[in-house]
C-alpha cells in the first residue's frame, strides 16, 4: 500500500513535466495504404523527412541473409529522375543530411533538411518508393561496401562477433537467428531477380510509414504528400511477415569464443517477450535497476566492490516477435571469468529473491523519466519514435504516454518477471577469452 501511494505521488509530480513536452501530431492513411504522420514544431527551421519500410532481416528468405541491409545501400543509387550517385549529392548540396539503417524488423530512411526544402525531401523519398533504379555496377560496388561494413563492425573488431553468435544461438531456427549484416557467402549470392522481387514485395506504400517532424505547414505538407505519394501504386504481392514467436530455448547454452582480445568478456542473453508487452516494460526496468548508473546492482558489486572488471551493462533488446535481455561485461585481465559470471548471477538472484526496495523503485522511475523526457530533443528523433510506435505497437501516441506503462509496473511485478525470465535454462552464455588462452 505504501508503495502504491509513493508511485501515485511520483506520477503527479511528473505530470507537469510531461505536459511541457507533449508531442502533437496528425496521422492518416493515403488510399494506397501509405501511413503518414506529421508533427509541427517551428523552433528551428529544419525538417526531418523519414520513411520506415516494415522489412528487416527477419523477412529475408533462406540463402539471402543480409539482403534487407544490402538493399538499403542500393536505395541510394537513384531513379529515372535521379542519376546514379546523385541522391546523396542533392541532399547535401541543399543543406541537408541523410542516412538509413536496417534492423531485424525494419528499414529506415531519413533526410534532415532546411525547412524550405520539404518538397525536395518528399520528392526524393517518393522517387525511392515509386521507381528506384539499380544497375549492376551499383550492385557490385555496394556489395563490396557492405562487405567492408561487415569487416569494420564485426570481423576486425574485438568482441565484434558477439551479435551474430548471440542471436545465432539464442534464436536458432527462428527469424532472428541471422543478424542484419548477413554472411559473406549470402552477400555474394544475391542476384538481379532478388532485387526486383524484394522491391516489388516490400517497398510499397502499404508497407511504409512516412513520418515528418519539424518546421512545416501541415496544410502545405499534406498537399505535397498527396502530389508525390498518392500516385504510387499499392503493392499487389503478399508481404511475408513472420509472426510466430521463436520456440523456447530449451536449456542453457554455454559457449566459449577465443578472440583477438586482451580482456575476458561475457555476454549473457535471456530470452524474453516481445516489445510493448508489460513483461517487456518490466525487463526494461530490470535493466535499469541492474545496470543504469554507478549505484546499480551490477556496477556496484562488480566494478566497485569486487573489482572484477571495468564494464558491466544490461539492456533489453526489444524486437517485434521476441526480446533478448542482454547482460555483458569485460573483466580485468587477472579475473577468472567464471567469478565474474557468478557475481552477475548473485545480483540477479538477489533481485529475484529479495525484490527491490521502495527507494530503488523510486530511483528507477526517476531514471526512466529522465530518459523519457530526454528522447524528444530533436525533430529527427521525434519522427523516428512516432514511426516506430505506430509500426510496432499500432499507437504513435505512445511517444507521449508510454511512460504510463512503466509507472504501472509495480515492484512486485518486477520481481515476478525477473524470476520468470532470468533463469539459467532460459539463457545463452558466451564467454570471450583471449586467443592465447586457448
Amino acid at each position, binding site marked *: 500500500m505504501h508503495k502504491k501511494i509513493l508511485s501515485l505521488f511520483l506520477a503527479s509530480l511528473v505530470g507537469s*513535466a510531461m505536459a511541457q513536452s507533449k508531442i502533437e501530431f496528425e496521422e492518416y492513411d493515403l488510399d494506397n495504404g501509405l501511413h503518414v504522420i506529421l508533427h509541427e514544431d517551428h523552433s528551428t527551421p529544419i525538417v526531418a523527412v523519414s520513411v520506415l519500410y516494415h522489412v528487416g532481416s527477419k523477412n529475408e528468405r533462406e540463402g539471402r541473409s543480409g539482403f534487407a541491409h544490402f538493399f538499403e545501400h542500393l536505395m541510394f543509387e537513384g531513379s529515372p529522375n535521379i542519376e546514379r550517385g546523385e541522391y546523396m549529392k542533392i541532399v547535401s548540396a541543399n543543406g*541537408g543530411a541523410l542516412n538509413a539503417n536496417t534492423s531485424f524488423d525494419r528499414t529506415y530512411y531519413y533526410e534532415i533538411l532546411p525547412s524550405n526544402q520539404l518538397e525536395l525531401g518528399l520528392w526524393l523519398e517518393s522517387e525511392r518508393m515509386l521507381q528506384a533504379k539499380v544497375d549492376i555496377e551499383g550492385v557490385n560496388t555496394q556489395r563490396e561496401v557492405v562487405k567492408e561494413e561487415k569487416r569494420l563492425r564485426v570481423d*576486425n573488431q574485438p568482441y565484434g562477433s558477439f551479435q551474430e553468435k548471440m542471436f545465432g544461438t539464442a534464436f536458432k531456427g527462428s527469424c532472428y537467428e541471422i543478424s542484419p549484416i548477413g554472411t559473406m557467402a549470402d552477400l555474394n549470392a544475391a542476384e538481379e531477380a532478388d532485387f526486383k522481387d524484394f522491391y516489388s514485395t516490400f517497398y510499397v506504400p502499404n508497407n511504409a510509414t512516412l513520418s515528418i517532424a519539424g518546421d512545416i505547414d501541415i496544410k502545405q505538407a499534406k498537399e505535397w504528400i498527396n502530389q508525390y505519394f498518392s500516385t504510387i501504386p499499392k503493392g499487389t504481392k503478399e508481404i511475408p511477415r513472420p509472426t510466430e514467436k521463436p520456440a523456447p530455448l530449451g536449456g542453457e547454452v554455454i559457449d566459449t569464443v577465443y578472440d583477438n582480445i586482451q580482456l575476458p568478456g561475457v555476454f549473457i542473453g535471456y530470452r524474453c517477450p516481445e516489445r510493448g508487452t508489460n513483461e517487456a516494460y518490466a525487463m526494461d526496468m530490470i535493466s535499469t535497476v541492474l545496470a543504469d548508473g554507478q549505484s546499480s546492482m551490477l556496477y556496484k558489486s562488480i566494478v*566497485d566492490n569486487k573489482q572484477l572488471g571495468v564494464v558491466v551493462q544490461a539492456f533489453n533488446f526489444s524486437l517485434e516477435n521476441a526480446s533478448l535481455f542482454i547482460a555483458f561485461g569485460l573483466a580485468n585481465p587477472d579475473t577468472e571469468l567464471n567469478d565474474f559470471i557468478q557475481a552477475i548471477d548473485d545480483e540477479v538472484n538477489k533481485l529475484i529473491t529479495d525484490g527491490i526496495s521502495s527507494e530503488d523503485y523510486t530511483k528507477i522511475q526517476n531514471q526512466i523519466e529522465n*530518459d523519457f523526457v530526454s528522447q524528444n530533443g530533436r525533430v529527427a528523433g521525434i519522427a523516428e519514435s512516432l514511426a516506430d510506435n505506430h509500426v510496432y505497437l499500432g499507437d504513435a501516441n505512445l511517444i507521449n504516454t508510454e511512460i504510463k506503462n512503466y509507472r504501472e509496473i509495480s515492484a512486485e511485478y518486477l520481481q515476478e518477471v525477473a524470476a520468470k525470465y532470468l533463469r539459467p535454462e532460459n539463457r545463452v552464455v558466451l564467454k570471450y577469452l583471449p586467443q592465447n588462452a586457448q
Partner: protein
Amino acid sequence: MKKVLASLLILLLTVSGFAQVDRSIRPKPAPAKEIDLGEYKTYTLDNGLKVIVVKNDKLPRVSFSLVVDRDPFLEADKTGYISLAGSLMRNGTNNRTKEQLDKEVDFIGATLFTGATNAYASGLSKYSEEIISLMADVALNPSFPQEEFDKLKKQSLSGIESAKEDPNSLSSRLFNSSLYGLNHPYGELETEASINNITLEDCQNFYQENWNPNKAYMVVVGDIKPKKAKKLIEKYFGAWESKEVAKREYEMPAKPAASEVKIINRNSSVQSVLTLGNTIELQPGSPDIVTVRLMNQILGGGMTGRLFQNIREDKGYTYGAYSNYDSDELVGYFSASASVRNEVTDSAVVEFIKEFKSLQTEKVGEQELQDAKNNIIGSFGRNLESAQTIASFALNRELYNLPEDYYKTYIQRLEAVTADDIMAAANKYINTDALIITAVGKAADIATSLEKFGPITYYDFNGEETGPPSFPVPAGITAESVINGYINAIGGQEKLDAVKDMSIIMSASISGMPMEAQAKTLKKRPNLFLTEMTVAGFGTVQKVVFDGKKGETSGMQGSQVLEGEELEEIKSQGAFFGEAEYLSNGYKLTLVAINMVEGEKAYTLEVDKNGDLSTEYYSVETGLKLLEEATVEGPQGEITVSQKYSDYRAVDGVMIPYQINISQGPQQISMTATEAKINSGLKKSDFK
C-alpha cells in the same frame, strides 16, 4: 447539370493537379528562413568564474558544464595521471563517499562526471539545485580517497589492455605519437608503466595547482531562468578561491621532410586502419578557418566528399573515407582516414594522395564549391536545434577571444570563399609530399605495397619503434621448397647446368672512398674462380684466384698462396649456384619465419655449414634471394656482414642480381653490374 459540370471540373482540376507533378523536375526550395543564433546571458562572479546561460525550455532538463581553461599539459612518464585525477574527483568528497554520490546522483536520474579540468552534470530541471550542489561538491571538495585511487588505477590498466587489440585505438595512438612525437602533450601515450608511476599525491597536486575559477567557465543550458542559474552558481561556486596557474609552452613538433609510413602489425586484421596527415598551424578564429572547413568539406567532409565518393562509392574499398582537421592554439592537424580491406590498402593510399593533389592543382568547380557551402550552412542550421550549440558558440568566443559577431558573420565569410582560396588552402595545409601515413593492419599482407609511399618503420603499442615483424611460415612450405623455389626462380636446374662459365663486371662505390672501383668476377666449371678489384689510379687493389689446383691472393698487401681452410673457402666460392648444394650433405637448414626485407616478405632460412652460420632471405613472391647475413670475427670484435641482392636480370635465361649492396660493420659497398656474360668461352688461362 451545372452542378455536375462543376464537380467534373473540380475532378479534372484535382486529377490534373496530380498529373502536373513533373517528376523529372527537382522541386525548388521555398524562400529560406533566417537562421536564429539564439540568445545567451553571461556574467562573471567575483572570483573570476564566467557564467554562460542558454535558456531553452523545450525539454524539462538542465545541464551544467564547468570548463577550466588551461594550457596543454605534458605528463611525461606519468601519462594518464591528469585524467585519472579528474575521474577520482567524482569518487569521493569531504562530504560524501563514492557510494553516497552514486546513490544521490542516480536517485534523481541525473548524470555527473568529471575530467582533468572539467565537470558535467545534467538531469531533470526540477532537480536543478540538487544537481548543481552535487557538482559543486565534487569540483570543490574532492577527498581523493586512496581506495578509489587504487581502483581507478586498476581500471586504467585494464583499459590499456583492451586498447591493445582494438584497431581504432591502436590507430589513433600511432597517428598521434607519430604526428606530435612521444614527448609532446598531444603525442604522449598512456602505457602500463606510466599508469603504474602515478601516485595519489600527483593527483592531489594536479588538482591544487590547476583548478581555478579565474580561468573557468560555467555553461548552463536548459529549462532554467538565467536569474535562478546565477543565484545557484553564486551559492555553490561563489566561495571558490582563485589562484595563479603556471603557463606552459611547447615547441612545434618537427615535420618530416618527406612522407613516412608507420605500421603497427596486427596479424588478425582483415582491414587496415589507414590515416594520412600532417600538423598544421591554424589558430581558432584565424581567417583561414572557413576556407579550411570548406576545403575539408569538399575533400572528405561527409558522404558527398571526394574521398567518400571515390574510395567508397566508386571503388568499393571501404565503408567510409573522410578527412578532418583541427584548429588549435598550440598545434592543429589535418588528417584523412579509412578502414580498407588488406588487399587494397596501397590502392586506397594512392587514391587519397590523388585527391589531395587534385585539390592542390585544379580549381574546384563553382557548382561543387557552392554545394559545399550550402552543406555547411545547412549543418550550421541543424546544429542550432541543440541549445548546446548556442552555448558552445558562446564558450568558444570566450576561450579564443573571438569578435562579438564571429558566428553572426560566419555564413557571410563562408560565402565569400573562392575556388582560388580553396586551392591555396589545400597547398598550405596539406603536405602531400611530407605526410605521416599510419596503418594498423596485417603487415604480411600490406607492408610490401606501402613501401612506395615512403620508408616504413614499425611500432609497438607504446609507440616505440620495433624491427619489422615476423610471421609464421604457412603449412607446406619447407627449407627444401624454398631452395627449390630459388633454383627455379633463377632459371631452373637445366639452365643452370648448361652454364659452363660466367663473367660479371661491376662498378663499386665504397663508403669513404671518393673514387670508383671496378670488380670483375670470373667462374668456369668445375670451380675455377677469379675476382679482382681495381681502383682508378691505384690499379689492382685485391685479387683472388683459384685455377683448379692452387689458390692465391695478391694486391696492395702483397701476394700469398692460400692453403688449408682458406683454400677450401675459395673453392666453395667458385662453385656455380652454390645454393643447389644446400640440399646435399653437410648443410643443416632451418626455415625460421617470414620476415620483411626492405618491405618485401621473405622466408628466413638459417644455413649451418659445419658450424658456419648464416641467415638468408628468399622472397616469398619471386623466390629470389634478397639478403644474406652472417656474423664474423673482425679485428675489432664481431661484426655483421650482409649482402643485399636486387635488380635481377636475365642473362641467357639465368637471373643475375645487377645490384649488390655489401655492408660490413661501418663499411658500405654498393656494386652495380655493367656487364654480365654466360658461356662466353672463358679459358683456363683467364684464371691467373
